[in-house]
């Protein structure tokens, strides 16, 4: 709210998306300022993944518009490939390339899509892998890595084109609880480094900790949005309340720490 002046990095306006007649996104508007971290929460099927895939221009939308750094972009654009380089996405199922080593996975896009030399692309990939604590895995193939490591490689791969925004689609949902922690830690440090991120997640404690803003989605609509304090402390919409009540009833005690963990995040106040 204090950052009225800076134009949004990514702006979605009135997005509608149908799958065989069924409205999956029903007029969602959402924008991300630079360095902002927004978490999407909501039940499975609420449209979180579809929203991210549409925002990444991986699927056409039926109505609405998408702007990246003030410019309108669309799936149908001739230069949609160039736009996708400015957006990074990480999927729930990792989707690493099994025939390439970890290093090659990360270096592929810089080399092929950004036309860097092999040496420059690998240097960039090595730096990224080192910063994510994966330097010693560079020569391994993905199937030799744990799920958490694979997902961190996928994050490194998405960062390799130096995207303006990182989209994350329930990236811890396919991991066992021990591995979830290492991936969330990676995201937390990315948030601290100022990365603009749109995160679909079921990890409420993490969302409360890392997000600047929480958006609750239901049936393809944005029901309510606000700061974590407001959303977890005093949600206004009855549907949000009901969703959070159900989430709390199934999660173990202590996993939801709604407010008060944000003191350390003042580091990021550079905007």
């Amino acid at each position: 709210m204090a950052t009225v002046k800076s134009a949004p990095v990514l702006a979605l306006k009135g997005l509608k998306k149908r799958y065989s007649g069924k409205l999956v996104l029903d007029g969602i508007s959402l924008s991300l300022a630079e360095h902002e971290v927004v978490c999407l929460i909501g039940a499975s099927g609420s449209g979180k993944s579809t929203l991210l895939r549409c925002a990444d221009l991986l699927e056409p939308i039926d109505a609405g518009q998408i702007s990246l750094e003030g410019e309108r972009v669309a799936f149908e654009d001739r230069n949609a490939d160039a736009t996708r380089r400015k957006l990074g996405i990480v999927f729930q199922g990792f989707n690493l390339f099994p025939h390439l080593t970890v290093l090659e996975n990360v270096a592929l896009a810089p080399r092929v899509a950004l036309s860097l030399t092999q040496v420059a692309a690998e240097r960039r990939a090595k730096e990224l892998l080192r910063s994510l604590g994966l330097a010693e895995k560079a020569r391994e193939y993905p199937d030799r890595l744990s799920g958490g490591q694979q997902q961190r490689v996928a994050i490194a791969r998405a960062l390799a084109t130096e995207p303006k925004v990182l989209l994350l689609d329930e990236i811890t949902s396919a991991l066992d609880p021990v591995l979830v922690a290492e991936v969330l830690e990676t995201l937390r440090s990315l948030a601290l480094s100022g990365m603009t991120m749109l995160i679909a997640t079921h990890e409420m404690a993490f969302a409360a900790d890392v997000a600047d803003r929480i958006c609750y989605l239901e049936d393809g609509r944005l029901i309510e949005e606000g700061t974590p304090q407001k959303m977890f402390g005093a949600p206004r919409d009855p549907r949000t309340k009901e969703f959070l009540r159900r989430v709390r009833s199934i999660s173990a005690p202590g996993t939801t720490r709604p407010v008060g963990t944000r003191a350390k995040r003042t580091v990021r106040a550079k905007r």
Partner: protein
Amino acid sequence: MATGSARKGLLVATLSTLVVAAFVAYTIGSSPAWPEVQKAFFNGRYFSTSLPAVAEAFTINVRLFILAELLILPIGLLIALARSITTPALAPIRIFATIFVDFFRGVPSILIIYVLGFGVPALQLDGVPKEPFFWALVTLVLIYSAYVSEVYRAGIESIHPSQERAARALGLTRVQALRYVVVPQAMRRVIPPLLNDFIGLQKDTALVSILGVVETFKQAQILKAASFNFTPLMTTALIFLIITIPMTRLVDRLAAKDRNAQLGGTR
């Protein structure tokens, strides 16, 4: 105990095979005309006299299938990729590729060899070669490129769409995604069925004898006609088996390895 039961299994398999083989041999050998048939088809003297000529003519077959295979590998891939084109403006290429495959898979090889091998040279066009070997090569390449393109296409389609999506999400174009992500993965899966088609190709090199190429089958026919004995044809069959059986075993082993890798590995 496990090795014990394995040894017992081997013993039973060997015994039952021997019994069946002995029965078949006895049935054939005891037939009234067997001595005549043996003389006409399995004559040791004709075998040894036909072997050098038939084996030498086989080098033509080898040249034919090696050249054909080298051409088929890239052409088949191009046809497979042409069939996966989604850009509306390039639809004619896709349609042409589809018709090509339908036609060459649907018409008996021997007819295509006849029509192309005799028909095209008969047009007497300038600069169009007339050598039978050339047309034999062309027809085999056309027919088997159609088959091999289907093998490639099945391989490409067996790669999960999430792989292409991940590549596109990184900003790769569709062609780059195919080139760096989809096709390299498809290639590995495609090797066993590809070799299978090549076995068929190697046998089909005998078909081009109808164009007058003196390859091994034609050579055997010439010897047969001169001696009124069928043994030279059996010699040719033996030479084909020497090439194709090891290849068949190789295909089996690669396919088994592939299966294990898919069962054991992740995705």
